[in-house]
């Protein structure tokens, strides 16, 4: 029982880690205050769930989730490219509302508030072998999610350390100076949003196949708050800080379950706890745990 609970928490940590490090790429490294991240997560979850329910193999659903989210990342970058700071946050938040509204109201596709039940657990052939891998147990799903989150971490770490990552940081520090050096910040910001959306999409796919049921309530702006808290508390432009903050923020509200409060109190108490930690961090450690830059 305890180990099942622990495995569940570890799976959540892995999914949140993919969401948080990909948000870190756009917010911390590129300076794009993107509140549309939860919409990419939703798009990935719905795309993967709908494809799987229509008989498509898991790998296809998984990659399609990332690619569809990435495509929407590109589309979102077109109208928002000239926006900065609060204005960009508002525009991307609007995108989150639109995706939520579509998930809620396009009932013929998403079943609206009834959600999509019976999403199959991943099961696929291992490439170049005759073996079939079924991730029907939580332990096997944890190993798979752990591998994917590790891969996502390594890829994003590689991107931010490469010369391309330095252009992302230059764009964050001074967009005009970057343009004056002959670099198209439109292209840079679009790419950052697309990569970030891709990983949010695959996190959505993992979530959908793990929980096996999704509905629009899993993808409201409220669900973005913990992810944004992780990014800020871990420290802007710090991947190490993001990992530590993910573990802390996913585990921290768990004791609330054992106090015996009714679930109607546990949910809001969790939000209050996040808000409190965020407030304390902003007052006493404005750069978060390992942040390279201060929140403006």
């Amino acid at each position, binding site marked *: 029982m305890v180990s099942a609970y622990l495995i569940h928490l570890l799976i959540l940590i892995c999914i949140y880690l993919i969401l948080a490090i990909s948000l870190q790429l756009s917010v911390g490294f590129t300076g794009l205050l993107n509140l549309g991240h939860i919409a990419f997560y939703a798009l990935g979850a719905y795309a993967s769930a709908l494809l799987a329910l229509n008989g498509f193999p898991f790998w296809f659903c998984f990659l399609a989730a990332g690619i569809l989210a990435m495509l929407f990342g590109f589309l979102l970058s077109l109208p928002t490219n000239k926006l900065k700071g609060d204005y960009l946050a508002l525009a991307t938040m609007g995108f989150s509302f639109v995706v939520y509204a579509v998930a809620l109201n396009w009932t013929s596709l998403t079943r609206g508030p009834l959600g999509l039940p019976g999403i199959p657990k991943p099961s696929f052939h291992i490439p170049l072998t005759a073996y079939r891998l079924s991730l029907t147990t939580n332990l096997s799903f944890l190993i798979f999610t752990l591998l994917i989150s590790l891969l996502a971490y390594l890829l994003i770490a590689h*991107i931010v350390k490469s010369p391309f990552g330095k252009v992302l940081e*230059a764009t964050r520090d001074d967009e005009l100076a970057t343009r004056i050096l002959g670099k198209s910040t439109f292209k840079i910001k679009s790419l950052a949003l697309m990569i970030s959306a891709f990983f949010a999409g695959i996190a959505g796919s993992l979530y959908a196949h793990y929980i096996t049921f999704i509905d629009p309530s899993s993808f409201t702006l409220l669900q973005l708050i913990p992810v944004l808290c992780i990014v800020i508390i871990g420290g802007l432009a710090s991947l190490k800080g993001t990992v530590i903050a993910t573990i802390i923020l996913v585990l921290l509200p768990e004791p609330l379950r054992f106090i015996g409060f009714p679930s109607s109190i546990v949910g809001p108490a969790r939000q209050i706890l996040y808000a409190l930690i965020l407030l304390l961090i902003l007052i006493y450690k404005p750069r978060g745990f390992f942040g390279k830059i201060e929140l403006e």
Partner: protein
Amino acid sequence: MLRVENLKKYFGGVKAVDECSFEIQPETITALIGPNGAGKSTVFNLISGILKADSGEIIFDNKNITTLSPEAISNLGISRLFQQTRLFNNLTVKENLLLALDNEDTKFWKNLFGLNKITEEKEEKIREMLKLIDMENFENTLAKDLSYGQKRLVELSRAILNPHKLLILDEPVAGVNPRLRKKITEILLELKEKGDTILLIEHDMNFTLKIADWIIVMEKGKVIAEGEPEEIKNNPKVIEVYLGE
């Protein structure tokens, strides 16, 4: 090399640049001078594509660049130094300079597969530049931790390293100490020797008269005089603009 023809830029009722025309010859240092509010920085912003002209044309290397974006203008060969320091504060000095060398760093796939290496040639260029500005030991210092003078030197180096045919420098020696001013003067004269073309804005007349081959004087958005330093120094119109009647 650069021709500005009847350039106009109004901000509401304010005529920041009004029918402004001048030409820059290759391999020279040209200074754009004038009192505050004369429109010099606006002309620079128009040339580098940050502002768009209401009318008129900017021709660079026989190409009309009036409506091009800042990055397109930079890629055609105009490199700029801003009046206020605009370094990438959270990057190191070396990273700031590396960004100027080329645009290979914007190619995502090439960088993802590790095909855009920092070559020995690039390292050497950075080392040479840091040696030139006496900052060899600051390679790994974050730009935000530098003093104002050091920031100015790094930013000037970044503009120089950015592949260019024309350097436009907005007040390169403003606020720097005499030793640093001498250093910057030496660097600019050396660049001219090597065949660079430089257009600069400067308020310091001693510096301008010493370094410039040609001086263009602006007042209220218009060019009121141009000529060699000695000519400009004795021009009654210029004396009136600078010292009053």
